[in-house]
């Protein structure tokens, strides 16, 4: 059984159900919290840490995308400390991969790029890692460029949770982590992939794209997801 609760976000009184996340309540009230790994319609994992918020009386920062609201919570979604951490997270993502916007299919339609604007960074203080990463162009419709992957695992989740296939997964640890297809094989040889293209649509950067797209031509539309999910739910409960 769920209860309704009242709480404060940035000193504003708001209400919610106790099974809703801080992020959901904030959005209902037009309060902005930056997110990257979160995507409406997918299960949340709390991995990018951009949505961290401060909660009064708790010395730990908590991810708004997974933490549910409680009666009397006092939440702060922005502070000098949070702003600095968010800038560093985005910088880390840029330094970690090989992001060359000028030659990227997603230039101008990239969530990572947008996030850089949102958190206001115009240069990277961290050392670029210049990793050697592989490109997979073996699928006849789509390509994967791991140089642009930020490991948000949206592709892994949409394939598993929505398409029900689990073609995508992760391999390796730490900075060596990478997304893989089936048992780490070329995408074109996958016998689980249904070529539905959901992974491409949910990918926030130009890591997954349709073949034939030139620089800045790849726009994505993940908005079908919440719609799909709610249609399925309504089918389940008569």
């Amino acid at each position, binding site marked *: 059984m769920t209860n309704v609760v009242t709480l404060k976000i940035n000193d504003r009184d708001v209400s919610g159900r106790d099974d809703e996340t801080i992020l959901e309540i904030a959005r209902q009230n037009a309060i902005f919290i930056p997110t990257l790994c979160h995507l409406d319609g997918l299960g949340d994992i709390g991995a990018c840490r951009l949505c961290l918020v401060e909660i009064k009386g708790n010395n730990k920062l908590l991810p708004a995308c*997974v933490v549910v609201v409680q009666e009397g919570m006092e939440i702060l979604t922005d502070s000098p400390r949070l702003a600095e951490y968010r800038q560093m997270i985005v910088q880390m993502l840029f330094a970690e991969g090989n992001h060359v916007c000028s030659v990227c299919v997603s230039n101008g339609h990239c969530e990572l790029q947008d996030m850089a604007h949102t958190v206001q960074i115009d240069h990277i203080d961290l050392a670029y890692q210049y990793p050697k990463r592989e490109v997979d162009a073996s699928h006849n419709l789509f390509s994967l460029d791991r140089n642009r992957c930020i490991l948000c695992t949206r592709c892994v989740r949409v394939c598993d949770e929505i398409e029900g296939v689990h073609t995508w997964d992760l391999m390796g640890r*730490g900075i060596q982590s990478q997304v893989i297809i089936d048992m780490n094989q070329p995408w074109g040889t996958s016998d689980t992939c249904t070529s539905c293209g959901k992974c491409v649509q949910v990918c926030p950067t130009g890591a997954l794209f349709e073949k034939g797209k030139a620089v800045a031509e790849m726009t994505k539309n993940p908005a079908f997801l919440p719609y799909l999910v709610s249609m399925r739910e309504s089918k389940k409960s008569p």
Partner: protein
Amino acid sequence: MNTEELHQIAIDEQTRQRQYKHRLFVCMGTGCLAAHSDQVKQSLEAEVERRELKGQCQIASGGCQGLCVAGPMVTVEPQGTLYQHVQPQDAAEVIETLDQSPIERLQDRTTESFFQRQTKVVLNLAGRVDPERIEDYIAADGYSALLKALTEMTPAEVIEQITASGLRGRGGAGYPAGLKWSTVGKARSEHKYVICNGDEGDPGAFMDRSVMEDYPHRIIEGMAIAAYAVGADNGYIYVRAEYPLAVKRLGLAIRQAQKHGLLGNNIGGTSFNFHLEIRMGAGAFVCGEETALIASIEGGRGVPRPRPPYPAASGVFGQPTLINNVETFANVAQIIARGSDWFTGIGTEKSKGTKIFALTGKINNSGLIEVPMGITLREIIYDIGGGIPNDRSFKAVQTGGPSGGCMPTEYLDIVVDYESLQKAGSHMGSGGMIVMDETSCMVDVAKYFMEFCMTESCGKCVPCRVGTAQMYDLLNKITHGEATLDDLAMLEKLCGMVRATSLCGLGQGAPIPVLSTLRYFRDEYLAHIVDKHCPAGVCNITAAERTTA
């Protein structure tokens, strides 16, 4: 099996043991085995055979004595003589002199204080029970606490005892065991689970390994008591696959306990059921983190997930789950058997009982020790550890593994308990204790731990995945004499950020070795950066680099 039957086994076994005039226990721990203690045992057996002493003299396997460098070790009962560095060719002399005074040559007086200053609770049967025989454990009162709990106590009373004992988790965080048990107990669910965390991945740590190898039944008994207390019917022991001996002995112990009706259905003739299985980890440090461990048991990739919900509310397969460390469970049976008052008599106000440490580094007696909470670092290092070798001087001691801190000389007299170690910028951790002398470079030490965290990071969250690599690169630059003061500022900034924003304890703890060495040994960092010089002479800063810098 009921209490009388258990008692009968104990009596039979004790009678059997009393038939022997002498009982010799050859250590079969990993350390002694590596020194071929199995061959020592064989030649002792052959010698007994040859002299036709079989009925009077028993040659048995025993557990680790802690001072592994002095192995193979043999304990002679009833005298309690401890022989060190025993070789197969010593067998004849050992058996020959059983009724005479002990062989001087095989004893080492300098290590006496190693044994005398310890307080053994978890390891109290060290060397005197055969880990592979349930009868040995039962003869030493084993499983009586379980039957006592099942027949004389309600689950609530068991939790009360554990709460009153003040037992805290030995896996690192020191969370009160009683509180965790009562939370799981209160959770409403048809099925609950109990998990023993035996993943022990800290570099150089072997506390839990030793407990699992030597006291498999003590862990099973503790888990069964816990299961009864919280209302669980299934359990897992999660052991890393790198501990084959622990896996073997735990497996054997589970089968023996099942055979004796101490695991399975209707335990002790009551309505209590508890089924226990082993799960093996595949060598990922992060799988010791409880939510990653649970994901691994469920068959998934071992990565942590945000808490809450805590395992107590939603653990394995979404069911309420009690997860405790090996050493935590190993304390349980004795608390129930002897009462919480006995346990609170050991330790300090907020930290009760004993703690096992793996004492290593620049120290004379390195090995496994169990000390009462409240002992000072100085007593551990100088009395038990026998001080620093080669007339060098003490520089720092590191506790808490890859998320722990280094404490300098000023802290030698602080007492070892959860609070004071934390105040000193370190923490208890699971029991790693590394002693460093003047030849250790603190920047290099910090770099070592950062490298560990970087390679063990699961890669799920950005701050830990990228931050540990960035911090490692900066530390590497410093140790190569290539860093600037700006790099140091960035390192400190990253430390604060990664600590505050990482998802799990691995990332949150990764900056601590850097922060603590910066707190006490900042001058060493500056020497590398400004003077391009490593005071300890560890880092290889070449003259060429010095002139170009």
